[in-house]
């Protein structure tokens, strides 16, 4: 092993029951370099980080830190050996000040040392200064803005001068200027000779910062190299974009001219301190198919949850003439705005039939039967599996069940959140065909949220692009293919 390799992962595998989250991953992390570990949701990248840190037990393979085999070490031992981690979500101690939070990171793991060493205070202040927190050291986390909370996480991670720093989604929730400041900070870590591993699902956002990229998909390595090399790699492009970007030609443009069926005006959502949506406005005409395209974490799910009344938000949402803030979440669904969420939310222990039945509860018996028969025709595989428990279905079948269940409500507007996530191409085709037939047979309005542009484009009448909580582009699919195509990734 060359002298500069700080962290070495060999044939790392992680199995959760039947699911293989990480398969045979090998990588090396050198001192003085920033490695970007990228991949979409479910790619295993965060799992790799957790395995290195000892938060999850390893199923196979080895992890070596310097000379030591740390594969089976508990996390506190890994931490003491020189690995610092910044989690995706900030984890401060709320009842302590910023300074005390940082001091904690400097304390020894001892039951008997009741008083901290005298220099702990000085060192803590120095670290706070380094990350830009000296003005707020005596404040409590609940009073701090989001970026400062992230700074505090960085401070805790580097407090004991680790040789390896792991950072999960470094820029999520930050404004552009904050991203620049954080990038400088991370570069600083690298320049001090530390080995830095960044985990993110967006190559573009970390491209400027990293020295090398390691791309993952469904638990495996799919590409490795410089940022440009990886972005050009055909497998990576297929995974992120879904393949060639083509737009279907016969789209009905009249929808855009109609009065808006759904109107979202200046909606903003705060998750704790993070700006999950920033003054987002969209409009959807009756009968239109609108795709909202964006990477994981851009804010699609937040937008849909705000529409469905599941999240508090500022701004106004009007649907079919009704101000949605006057309805409960259940009321909104009954009113005709139905969401099929990314997480599907099926009733796992109940059968396919029972799941569908619950969806049709608000219809008359006759209508329910009609809808039920039609849906089983639309998704024939569900007919076969009618009496099976939902959780025994495959991923694709579960997705179809989730969509069918939502359609059982005979919605005026259907929101589909990332239906293609984790599904095989064959299933995507089936899904695509079902959506086509759906549009032919009924006047339903659809809002599709997708990262997979290849799937999202052909059906769409119009496209919005959501990036970092903001709408950055709007237009028809043809233009999208021309303008955003190559730049999207």
């Amino acid at each position, binding site marked *: 092993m060359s002298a500069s390799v700080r962290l070495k992962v060999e044939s790392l595998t992680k199995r959760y029951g039947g699911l293989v989250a990480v398969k045979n991953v090998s990588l090396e992390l050198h001192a003085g370099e920033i490695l970007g570990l990228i991949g979409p949701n479910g790619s295993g990248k965060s799992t790799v980080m957790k395995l290195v840190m000892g938060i999850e037990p390893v199923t196979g393979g080895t992890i070596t830190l310097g000379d030591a085999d740390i594969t089976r070490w508990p996390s506190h031992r890994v931490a003491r050996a020189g690995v610092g981690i910044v989690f995706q979500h900030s984890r401060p101690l709320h009842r302590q000040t910023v300074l005390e939070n940082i001091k904690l990171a400097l304390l020894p793991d001892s039951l008997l040392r009741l008083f901290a060493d005298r220099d702990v205070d000085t060192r803590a202040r120095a670290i706070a200064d380094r990350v830009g927190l000296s003005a707020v050291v005596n404040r409590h986390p609940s009073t701090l803005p989001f970026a400062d909370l992230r700074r505090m996480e960085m401070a805790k991670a580097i407090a004991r001068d680790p040789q390896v720093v792991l950072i999960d989604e470094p820029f999520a929730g930050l404004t552009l200027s904050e991203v620049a400041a954080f990038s400088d900070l991370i570069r600083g870590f690298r320049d001090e000779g530390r080995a830095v591993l960044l985990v993110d699902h967006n190559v573009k956002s970390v491209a400027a910062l990293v020295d090398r990229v390691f791309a993952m998909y469904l638990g495996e390595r799919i590409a490795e190299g410089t940022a440009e090399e990886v972005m050009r790699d055909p497998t990576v492009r297929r995974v992120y974009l879904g393949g060639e970007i083509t737009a279907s030609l016969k789209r009905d443009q009249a929808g855009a001219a109609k009065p808006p069926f759904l109107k979202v005006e200046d909606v903003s959502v705060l998750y704790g301190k993070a700006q999950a949506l920033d003054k987002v406005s969209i409009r959807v005409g009756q009968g239109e198919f609108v795709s909202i395209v964006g990477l994981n974490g851009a804010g699609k799910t937040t937008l849909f949850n705000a529409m469905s009344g*599941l999240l508090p938000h500022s701004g106004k949402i009007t649907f079919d003439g009704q101000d949605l803030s006057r309805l409960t979440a*259940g*009321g909104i*669904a009954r009113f005709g705005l139905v969401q099929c*969420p990314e997480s599907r*939310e099926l*009733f*796992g222990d109940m059968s396919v039939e029972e799941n569908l039945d619950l969806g049709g509860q608000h219809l008359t018996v006759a209508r329910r039967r009609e809808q039920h028969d039609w849906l089983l025709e639309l998704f024939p595989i569900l007919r076969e599996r009618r009496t099976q428990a939902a959780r025994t279905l495959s991923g694709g079948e579960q997705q179809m069940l989730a969509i069918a269940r939502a359609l059982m409500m005979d919605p005026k507007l259907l929101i589909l959140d990332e239906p293609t996530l984790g599904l095989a191409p064959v299933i995507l085709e089936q899904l695509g065909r079902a959506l086509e037939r759906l549009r032919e047979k009924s006047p339903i309005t659809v809002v599709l949220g997708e990262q997979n542009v290849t799937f999202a484009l052909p059906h769409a009448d119009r496209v919005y692009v959501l990036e970092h909580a903001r709408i950055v582009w709007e237009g028809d699919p043809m233009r999208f293919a021309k303008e955003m195509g190559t730049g999207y990734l």
Partner: protein
Amino acid sequence: MLGLQILIDGFAISSLYAIGAMGFTLIFGVSGVLNLSHGGIMAIAAVIGWLAAGDLGLGTYLGTLVGVIAGLVASYVTYFVVILPIQRSRAIPRDETEIFILTGTLLWGIMIQVGLAWLFTDNPVTMRPLIEGVTYIAGVRTPRNEIMIAVICWVVIGLLWLLVNRTPAGKRLLAASINPRGLTLLGFDLSRIYFFVWGIYGVLAGVAGVLLASFLGVSSASAGQLTASAFSIVVLGGLGSVSGSLVAAYVVGYLETITAYLIAPTLRPIPALLLLVLVIYVRPQGILGRR
């Protein structure tokens, strides 16, 4: 002979335990609440039922009915006065809600216990049997009332099963215990579902309380013990699993009966407690629990 006696007595007491335990676990499964005033609600049903039957001269059958209604009312009061305010409170941090509910219901249970004792009596109240007389089952002398109780319990269990598995409202309850968010997305307001489940719980606890009064007698002082029995059974069977509670109720009921007959009546609750400890260490999710 003794074996048959144990079999019969054990069956009756287990059926009673089952009703109470199933209610307790239903509330936990659907609404996420561990109601430590459970025994208090049973005691209210028992005392009011006894009062109605005796002092108010309504007779045993009507008295029983009044008792069950009292249980229902007590259940709703518990929900609206104690549970809901804690769940809605903004002053209590989210991750501590459970602890506050446990403490709050514990306090409420004590209030019920003391209140009942002061307002009425803390002596054990016994309802007159619903059916007088004894019969002989394979030579074992059995009060007819005992058989009646077992029958009523199983009718209730049957109705509950029908409700949950065959009616739309019941299916919604089941769905709520599996995935409340899924239900909201399908257009159901959870508040209505909670209202429904607390009603069912009130009836179950009421029936359990009144029948227990008829079988063994209930005093306000035993409220704590009743809660303890219920949650032991529920943990044994698996928190949130209604069928688990049913099975566990029989395990505990028989363990207690066997102990009372073969070892000593005072040691009655011990084996069940020991089993509980074992289960907690070895299989914390209980016999049929999901985890």
